[in-house]
C-alpha cells in the first residue's frame, strides 16, 4: 500500500492544537513528522487529560489531549533559548520537505528560521506559518487562543439562543478547522513542487480560516444591509427545526422538517395525523406558528427515547438525530462500524479510542493514523545521531547542558504542575461542567484489560 506522502519529511515546530492538527493529518497521509519541543517549552497540551486522573511520574508522556494531535510523530527536544539548539534545528532543515511553525510572527526571524533564511539552506523548502491573525496587518502580533478566534471569526455572532448573547462552541473551533486548512495548503504546495521543483511560503491566518463558515450571514449583510440574528436551533430555510427534550436525564433530539411531505411523514410517525392539516398544513403556517409547533413536538418527544425516536423518524424519511453526549459518541454503532475511532495502545496508558483527524475514507489506501504519541525527546538519538551524525559524547554533553532531555523544565515547578494536571472531578460534577463520572468506563468501552500497560502488570 502506497501512502500519498511517503518520502515526505516535515519538521514540525508547531504546538498546542491548530499546527499539530495540520502536521498530524500529513503524518496520517504518510509523511515522516519530526516534532520539535523544548525542555523549557514543552507542548502545553502534554498537561491535559491524564488517564485515571493520575499526574505522577512522567505524566507528560500520557496526556490524552496530546495523543490526539501527535500520534505517529517523532519527538525531539531542542530549546530555542540555546544558540547551539538553534544551529541543530538549522542542520535539520536540509532533510525537511516542509517546515511548519505556529509562533507569533516575529519569532522565526529572530532565530534565523524565517522563510528567506530557510531557502538559503534548502531552496525548494515549503514553509507554512499558522498564526492567529497572519503575518501581516495591524493585529499580526496579537496573541491568540482558539477559544478567542471563533468569536473573532464571526461565527459566535450567529451562535446563541434567540434574544440571548453570542456563544462559543464547546471546543476551540478554529483550531481543528485551520489545521485542516493548513494540511490542504501544504498538499497544494506539494502538488506545485512536484510539477515545478519549486517550494514556497504559506501564510495562514487561523482567524481568517473560519470566517467562511459565517458566509451566509456576511452575505445577508452585504446584499440586504440587514444584520443576521441569533436564532437558536432554528433554520433560515426550514420550519419546524429544533432540538427537543426527550425522556430521561438531559436527552434531546434534533429535528428538521423541510417540506409538506416531510411534515406529513413526521405527523404520522409521531402518531398525530391531526397535526398535518389546518394551520400547520403549509410552509407559511409552520413558519408563523413555529412556537406552537415546538410545544406540540416537545409534548411528543418528552415521552420518547431519543435514540428510538431518531430511528422512527428517519425510517419515515424525516431528518432527525439524537443529541449524543461524548460517551454515547464513543459507543455509537454507526461511528464504530465506520471506524471513526482508532484503538491506540499508548505506552503506560493502555488502549484508548482516539478520534481520527480526517473524516474521509479512501478506497486505495488507509491513512496511517493508529499510532501512539511520542514520549518527550523519545527520538533525540534517532534523529540527532541517525540524521545529523552526532556522536555519543556530543549527545551526552547536550543532555548534561539540558539542551536535550526527557524531562520538562517549566517556569512552574513540576510538583505544582502535578497538582494542576489532576482535575478536581468531583467539583466539576458539583459545578455541572461534567454530567457524570463513570468509574467503570474502561469496561463500558470494552478496553478493560487490553494493551501493553495491563500486560506488564
Amino acid at each position, binding site marked *: 500500500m502506497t501512502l500519498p506522502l511517503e518520502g515526505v519529511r516535515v519538521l514540525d515546530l508547531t504546538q498546542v492544537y491548530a499546527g499539530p492538527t495540520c502536521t498530524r493529518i500529513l503524518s496520517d497521509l504518510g509523511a515522516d513528522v519530526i516534532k520539535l519541543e523544548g525542555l523549557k517549552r514543552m507542548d502545553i497540551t502534554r498537561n491535559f*487529560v491524564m488517564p485515571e486522573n493520575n499526574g505522577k511520574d512522567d505524566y507528560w508522556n500520557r496526556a490524552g489531549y496530546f495523543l490526539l494531535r501527535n500520534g505517529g510523530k517523532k519527538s525531539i527536544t531542542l530549546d530555542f533559548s540555546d544558540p547551539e539548539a538553534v544551529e541543530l534545528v538549522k542542520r535539520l532543515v536540509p532533510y525537511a520537505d516542509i517546515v511548519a511553525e505556529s509562533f507569533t510572527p516575529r519569532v522565526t526571524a529572530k532565530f534565523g528560521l524565517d522563510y528567506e533564511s530557510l531557502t538559503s539552506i534548502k531552496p525548494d523548502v515549503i514553509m507554512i506559518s499558522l498564526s492567529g491573525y497572519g503575518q501581516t496587518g495591524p493585529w499580526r502580533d496579537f496573541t491568540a487562543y482558539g477559544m478567542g478566534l471563533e468569536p473573532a471569526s464571526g461565527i459566535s455572532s450567529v451562535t446563541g439562543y434567540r434574544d440571548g448573547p453570542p456563544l462559543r462552541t464547546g471546543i476551540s473551533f478554529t483550531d481543528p478547522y485551520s489545521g485542516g486548512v493548513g494540511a490542504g495548503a501544504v*498538499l497544494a504546495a506539494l502538488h506545485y513542487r512536484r510539477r515545478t521543483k519549486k517550494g514556497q511560503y504559506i501564510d495562514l491566518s487561523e482567524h481568517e480560516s473560519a470566517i467562511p463558515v459565517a458566509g451566509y450571514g456576511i452575505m445577508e449583510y452585504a446584499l440586504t444591509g440587514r444584520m443576521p440574528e441569533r436564532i437558536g436551533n432554528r433554520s433560515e430555510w426550514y420550519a419546524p427545526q429544533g432540538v427537543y427534550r426527550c425522556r430521561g436525564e438531559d436527552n434531546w433530539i434534533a429535528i428538521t422538517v423541510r417540506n409538506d411531505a416531510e411534515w406529513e411523514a413526521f405527523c404520522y410517525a409521531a402518531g398525530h395525523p391531526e397535526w398535518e392539516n389546518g394551520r400547520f398544513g403549509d410552509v407559511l403556517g409552520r413558519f408563523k406558528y413555529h412556537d406552537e409547533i415546538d410545544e406540540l413536538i416537545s409534548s411528543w418527544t418528552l415521552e420518547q427515547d431519543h435514540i428510538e425516536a431518531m430511528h422512527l423518524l428517519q425510517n419515515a424519511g424525516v431528518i432527525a438525530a439524537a443529541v449524543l453526549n461524548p460517551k454515547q459518541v464513543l459507543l455509537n454503532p454507526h461511528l464504530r462500524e465506520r471506524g471513526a475511532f482508532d484503538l491506540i495502545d499508548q505506552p503506560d496508558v493502555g488502549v484508548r479510542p*482516539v478520534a481520527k483527524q480526517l473524516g474521509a475514507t479512501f478506497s486505495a489506501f488507509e491513512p496511517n493514523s493508529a499510532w501512539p504519541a511520542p514520549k518527550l525527546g523519545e527520538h533525540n538519538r534517532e534523529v540527532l545521531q541517525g540524521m545529523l551524525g552526532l556522536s555519543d559524547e556530543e549527545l551526552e554533553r547536550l543532555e548534561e547542558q539540558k539542551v536535550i532531555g526527557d524531562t520538562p523544565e517549566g517556569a512552574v515547578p513540576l510538583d505544582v504542575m502535578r497538582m494542576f494536571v489532576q482535575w478536581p472531578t468531583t467539583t466539576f460534577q458539583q459545578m455541572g461542567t461534567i454530567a457524570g463520572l463513570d468509574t467503570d468506563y474502561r469496561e463500558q468501552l470494552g478496553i478493560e484489560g487490553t494493551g501493553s500497560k495491563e500486560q506488564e502488570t
Partner: protein
Amino acid sequence: MSESALAGTRVVDLAQGIAGPYCARLLADLGAEVIKVEPPEGDYARRLGPFPNDVPHHDRGGLFLHLNGNKKSVTLDLDTASGRVVLRKLLADADVLIESEAPGVMASRELGFEQLRDEFPQLVYCSVTPFGQTGPYASFKGNSLAAMALSGLMYITGTPDEEPLCTGGEPAEYFGALHAWVAILAALEHRAKTGAGQHIDVSMLEALGCADEYNTTMYAYLGAIRKRFYSRHAIPTYPSEIFPCRNGSIVVIGGATGFPLMMAVLIEQPELESNPLFQNLWLRFMQWEKFEEILRPYLAEHDWEDLLTRAQELRIPFAAVLDARTLLENEHLRERGFFAEVEHPELGKVPLAAHPFKMSETPLRVGRSPLLGEHSQEVLREVGYEEEDQLVLRERGVT
C-alpha cells in the same frame, strides 16, 4: 503571471448544497478548472438566498456566490441517458469528480464509482454526504444540525439549563467541505505516485467529529462526561468566556502566563493581584461567579476596541466578537485583503470572503459564481458538440 498550484487539474462538480460545492470552490481558488454540472433547474443552493430586496432569483443568491466562485456552470439532466452521455465526455479529461447524492443514487444512474472506474481509471471520485456511504445510518437524511447532534459537539455547546445548541453557519457542511478538499488533494498525490484514481467517502459527521477537542478523550481517559457550560473551556483556564462590554462583547481569556498581575493592571485595580481569586486558578474556576462580579462592572464601562488593544499590549489573549458588519469593516482584514470585491452581472460589486492563507509562488484566485448554465455552450463545444446538436439537447431538456 505565475502559475496556479492546481493548474491543469480539471474537476467535475456534481454536488449541490454547501459541503460539496464549497470543496470544489476551494479547488477552483487554487487554480483547478471546475465545471459545475447542475440539473436544469439549478443547484438547490441557488434558492437559499440571501437575495437583494429578499426577492428570490436563481442567479442572485448570496450563499451560492460564496460557495461557487471561479466555476463554470453547465446544466445537464443526469436522470436522462442523453445527459449521462454528455457527462461521460466531460469525465474523459477530468481528474476529480465530486458528488453529494444520497448513497445509491449515483449507482442507480450508472454513475457510481464502480461503474466508472474501468472507463476512467484516473478519476478521483469523491462523495460527500452527511453520514457516509456505509454503516447503519448511511441511508439517514441529514444536515449540519443532525451532524452536530450526533458528533457530540451539540451536547457540549450552550448553557447548562437550556437545550443543546447548534453552532451557527452550518459548521458540519464546512468541515465536510474542508476534509473532502484535503482528501482530494491527498488522492491526487497518491495518483501521481501510482497512476490510479480512487473513491473517497467523506462523512460530514466524521469531519465535524474530528474537531472534538477533548470531550471523547475526557471519557476515554477519566470516565467524565463533559456537559455544556456557557462559552468556557473544560480545561480550567478560567476565564475563557464571552462577556458583555459597553459597546458589544469581548472574549476574556486569561492566558497561560501573566495572570494575575496583568489582569489586575488591565482592569486598573492592581491591588487585586493579591486577591485569592486572582492568585488561585482552581479557586477562580470554581468560584467563577464571584470573579465575574469583580470583572463585569469594569467591562461594562469600556469598549471592546479599547479592552482588546490594552489586553494585547499586556500580552493577554483577549479577542473581539465580530459580526457581519464589523468583519467587513475590520481594518486588519482589510489590510490583509481578506474580503475581495467581485463584480457579478446580477449583483454588482459584492465583497467575498477570499482565502485564509496566502501562497508566495502560486497566488490564489478570486472569482464570482457562474450564472445558471452560463458555460453550457462553451463546455459542450469543447467536448465536441456542434451548435445544431446542442440545440437538440437544449430542446429535449437535456441541458
